[in-house]
C-alpha cells in the first residue's frame, strides 16, 4: 500500500509552495541592486553561510530573542517552529530507516503511520514512536498556548495581539488543524492496530474502546492532508509567508545587505519576514503611554505586504527605534518606515489572484513639484576660519542654559572655535527628512555643508542629537562630527578642562537619535561619572525611552506627547535622583515640563563643575562674569 488519494491535497500544497518559494526568491534576487546581488552571492558561498545557518537555528527555530523577551511567548513560537522541524526531520529519518525503501517522497514520511500502521511495537521502533509522540506533544502544548493567546491575549504576556485579515484566519485555522488532526489520525490508526506510544497509543486505545477506530482513522488522515495542503497554498497570501522569507532574509542580511534609503527587494523581504509576533507593539510608547495601538511596526509591515495605503501609520511614529531593538527577526523597522515616508501614497495594486501571489514592485504617486518647499531665499553662506565649529542647533536656542554652558566649557578649554549659529542658523534638514521630504532636506544640507566646508575646520561639535545624526549620515563632510558629550569627554581626557565633583545623584536619559539612532551610549555616561554619582535606571542604552517630544511624529497631540513624557520621567526618576540628566535640548525641555526633578543637560553639569584657572583676564569677558540666578 504505497499510495492513497488522500495525500493529493498535501502533495499539491507542498509542490506548490516549493515552486512558489523558488520563483519568489529568484524574483527578489533579480530586484536586488548589483552590489547587493554580489554581496549575496559572496555571502551565500562564503563565511557568512555558517553564521546564517546558526542564526536560522537560533532565531527561526529556537526563537531565542522572543524567549529572552517573554518566556511563554517564546515557548509558543519555539514549540511550533522547532517542534515542527523536529517532526519533519525525525519523520523523514523514520521513513528512511523503518520504511520499505530509502529516499521516499515527502508524503511517505508525513503519513508514515498510515502506510505503516503496524510500526512501533517493540525495541527501537517503540523507542522511536515514543520520541515522535514526544515531539507531537511538544508542538501541541505550544498550540494550546497559541489558541489561548488568540482568545485571551494577556496570557502570553502580550498587551495586544495583531488584528487578522480573513485569509489569515483561514490559514490560521488550517495551521491549527494540522497537529490535532495528525494526533487523531495517528491515534485512530494506532488504536485499530494496537500500536503507538504514550500519546497516540493511549489516546488510540481509549478511542477504540468505544469508537470504530479503523473507520474513523481515514477521514482524519484526509483532514490532516487537507489542512496541510490548504495551509501551504494560502501561505503566500498570509503572514505565514514569514516562515520561508525569513530564511532568505537571514542570508541576505548576513551577506551585508542593509535597508539603505530606497525601497527595494530587501525592504520587501523584511516586510514579508514579519511574523506579527507583536513585540514591537509591547515596546512602543505610543501604545503604553498614549493608547495608540494601530500604528506599530507590525501593522506597517502588514500594510506594506498588502499594498495598502499606510500613510497614516507611517507618519504616526516617534521614530525612536525601540521596536528595532526588540524585533526578533531583526527587521530594520525604522529605516523601512523612513523609506515609506519618502515614498508617499502608493498606487492601489491591481486586483486579481495572480497579483496577490506576485504583487510586483509597489508604485507610488508622483508628486507635482510646484507645491514642494523651496529655500532659494537663503543668503549665500559666510563663515570665518576656525579649527573647531560649534553648531548649537535650533532647539538649543530654546534651552539657553545649554548654549551658555557650552560657551563656558569651550572658552575654558582654550580651543579656537567659532560659534556658527550664535544668532541662530539654518535647520540641519533632519526634520524635513523625518517628514519624508528628502529632496528639500538636501537643499538645506548643501547650504550648511558649504558653510562648514568654507571654514576649513577639522571638527564640528553640535549640542543637538538630531543635527548630529544627519551631519554624520547625510552630509558629505571631510570633517569629524562629534556630539558635545563626545567632545567634552575628549576635553576632559586631554586635560583641557578641569572638573570638580558635584556630589549629586544623577540618572541619565539616552536621547533616541544619539543612542539607538547613532550608537553613542558610553561617552555621555563617562562624562557624567566625572562630575556626579551616576545611578542606573531600568531603561538604559538600547532600552532607553523616548521623551515624547520627538520631531519624528507630527500626528500626535500635545496631550499625548505630555503623557509619554510624564510616564518616561516617572520611570526614570523612580529612585528619586537629584538630577535627571540628558544630552539633547529637546529631551531636556520635554522632560522638564513633565517632572519636578531638575532636568539638566550634561553640558550644564560640566559647566557647573568646571574649575576655572585662577589667572584673571586670561579668559574672555563673558566667562569672567559669574552667572548666578537673581536672588532678591
Amino acid at each position, binding site marked *: 500500500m504505497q499510495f492513497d488519494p488522500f495525500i493529493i491535497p498535501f502533495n499539491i500544497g507542498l509542490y506548490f509552495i516549493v515552486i512558489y518559494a523558488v520563483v519568489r526568491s529568484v524574483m527578489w534576487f533579480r530586484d536586488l541592486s548589483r552590489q547587493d546581488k554580489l554581496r549575496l552571492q559572496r555571502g551565500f558561498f562564503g563565511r557568512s553561510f555558517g553564521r546564517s545557518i546558526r542564526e536560522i537555528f537560533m532565531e527561526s527555530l529556537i526563537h531565542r530573542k522572543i524567549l529572552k523577551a517573554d518566556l511563554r511567548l517564546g515557548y509558543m513560537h519555539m514549540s511550533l517552529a522547532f517542534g515542527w522541524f523536529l517532526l519533519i526531520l525525525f519523520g523523514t529519518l523514520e521513513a528512511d530507516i523503518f520504511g520499505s525503501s530509502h529516499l521516499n517522497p515527502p508524503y511517505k514520511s508525513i503519513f508514515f503511520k498510515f502506510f505503516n500502521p503496524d510500526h512501533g511495537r517493540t525495541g527501537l521502533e517503540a523507542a522511536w514512536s515514543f520520541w515522535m509522540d514526544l515531539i507531537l506533544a511538544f508542538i501541541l502544548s505550544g498550540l494550546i498556548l497559541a489558541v489561548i493567546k488568540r482568545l485571551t491575549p494577556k496570557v502570553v504576556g502580550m498587551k495586544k495581539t495583531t488584528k487578522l485579515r480573513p485569509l489569515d484566519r483561514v490559514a490560521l485555522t488550517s495551521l491549527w488543524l494540522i497537529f490535532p488532526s495528525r494526533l487523531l489520525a495517528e491515534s485512530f490508526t494506532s488504536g485499530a492496530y494496537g500500536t503507538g506510544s504514550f500519546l497516540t497509543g493511549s489516546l488510540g486505545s481509549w478511542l477504540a474502546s468505544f469508537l470504530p477506530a479503523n473507520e474513523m482513522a481515514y477521514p482524519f488522515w484526509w483532514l490532516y492532508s487537507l489542512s496541510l495542503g490548504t495551509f501551504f497554498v494560502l501561505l503566500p497570501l498570509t503572514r505565514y509567508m514569514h516562515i520561508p522569507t525569513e530564511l532568505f532574509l537571514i542570508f541576505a542580511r548576513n551577506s551585508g545587505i542593509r535597508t539603505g534609503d530606497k525601497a527595494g527587494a530587501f525592504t520587501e523581504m523584511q516586510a514579508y519576514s514579519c511574523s506579527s509576533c507583536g513585540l514591537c507593539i509591547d515596546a512602543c510608547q505610543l501604545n503604553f503611554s498614549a493608547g495608540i495601538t494601530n500604528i506599530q511596526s507590525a501593522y506597517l509591515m502588514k500594510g506594506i505586504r498588502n499594498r495598502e495605503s499606510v500613510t497614516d501609520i507611517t507618519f504616526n511614529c516617534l521614530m525612536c527605534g525601540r521596536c528595532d531593538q526588540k524585533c526578533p527577526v531583526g527587521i530594520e523597522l525604522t529605516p523601512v518606515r523612513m523609506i515609506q515616508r519618502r515614498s508617499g501614497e502608493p498606487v492601489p495594486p491591481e486586483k486579481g489572484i495572480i497579483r496577490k501571489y506576485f504583487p510586483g514592485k509597489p508604485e507610488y504617486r508622483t*508628486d507635482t513639484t510646484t*507645491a514642494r518647499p523651496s529655500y532659494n*531665499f537663503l543668503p549665500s553662506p559666510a563663515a570665518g576660519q576656525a579649527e573647531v565649529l560649534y553648531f548649537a542647533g535650533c532647539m538649543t536656542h530654546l534651552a539657553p542654559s545649554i548654549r551658555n554652558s557650552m560657551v563656558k566649557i569651550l572658552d575654558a578649554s582654550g580651543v579656537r572655535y567659532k560659534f556658527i549659529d550664535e544668532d541662530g542658523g539654518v*535647520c540641519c534638514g533632519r526634520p524635513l527628512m523625518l517628514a519624508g521630504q528628502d529632496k528639500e532636506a538636501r537643499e538645506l544640507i548643501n547650504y550648511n555643508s558649504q558653510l562648514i566646508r568654507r571654514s576649513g575646520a577639522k571638527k564640528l561639535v553640535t549640542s543637538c542629537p538630531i543635527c548630529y545624526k544627519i551631519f554624520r549620515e547625510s552630509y558629505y563632510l571631510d570633517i569629524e562630527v562629534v556630539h558635545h558629550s563626545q567632545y567634552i569627554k575628549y576635553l576632559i581626557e586631554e586635560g583641557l578642562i578641569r572638573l570638580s565633583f558635584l556630589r549629586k545623584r544623577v540618572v541619565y536619559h539616552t536621547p533616541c537619535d544619539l543612542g539607538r539612532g547613532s550608537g553613542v551610549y558610553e561617552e555621555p555616561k563617562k562624562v557624567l561619572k566625572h562630575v556626579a554619582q551616576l545611578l542606573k535606571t531600568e531603561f538604559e542604552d538600547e532600552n532607553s525611552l523616548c521623551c515624547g517630544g520627538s*520631531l519624528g511624529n507630527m500626528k500626535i*497631540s500635545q496631550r499625548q506627547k505630555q503623557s509619554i513624557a510624564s510616564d518616561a520621567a516617572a520611570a526614570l526618576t523612580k529612585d528619586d535622583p537629584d538630577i535627571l540628566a540628558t544630552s539633547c535640548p529637546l529631551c531636556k525641555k520635554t522632560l522638564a515640563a513633565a517632572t519636578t526633578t531638575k532636568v539638566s543637560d550634561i553640558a550644564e553639569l560640566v559647566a557647573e563643575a568646571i574649575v576655572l584657572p585662577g589667572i584673571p583676564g586670561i579668559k574672555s569677558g563673558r566667562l569672567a562674569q559669574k552667572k548666578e540666578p537673581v536672588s532678591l
Partner: protein
Amino acid sequence: MEKFGFTLLKARFIDYDANDRSIAEFIYSKEPSFRVCIECGCCAATCTTGKYTRFSLRELNILMKRGENSLVRNKIRECMLCGKCTLVCPRGVNTRNVIALAREAYRKEQDNAV
C-alpha cells in the same frame, strides 16, 4: 444699470462669504489643534525661516482661516519644519502638522485644477 454713488474698492475687503475656506476646513478636520491658535505670534518670533524672509505662520494661519489663499499658497513652501514653533506654542498647536497638511491641501488643489 447706471453706476451711481460711492464705489467700494473690492480688493480692500476680505470677502468672507465668497472666499473658499476649504483649505482651512481640511486642516481642521485632520488637525483639530489648528483651531485653538490665539495669534500670539510666538511661532513667528522664533521661526528659523522668518529670519531670512517674510514668513509668519501666525499670518498664514489666519489668512487660511479667512480663505485668503493666494499669499499662503507660495509662502507655506518656505518652512523648514524645524519644529521650534511647535515647542514654543502656548496653545499646543501641532504647527508642523498644520504646515504639512496645508502643503498637502494646496497640492491637491493644484492637482485637481490641472
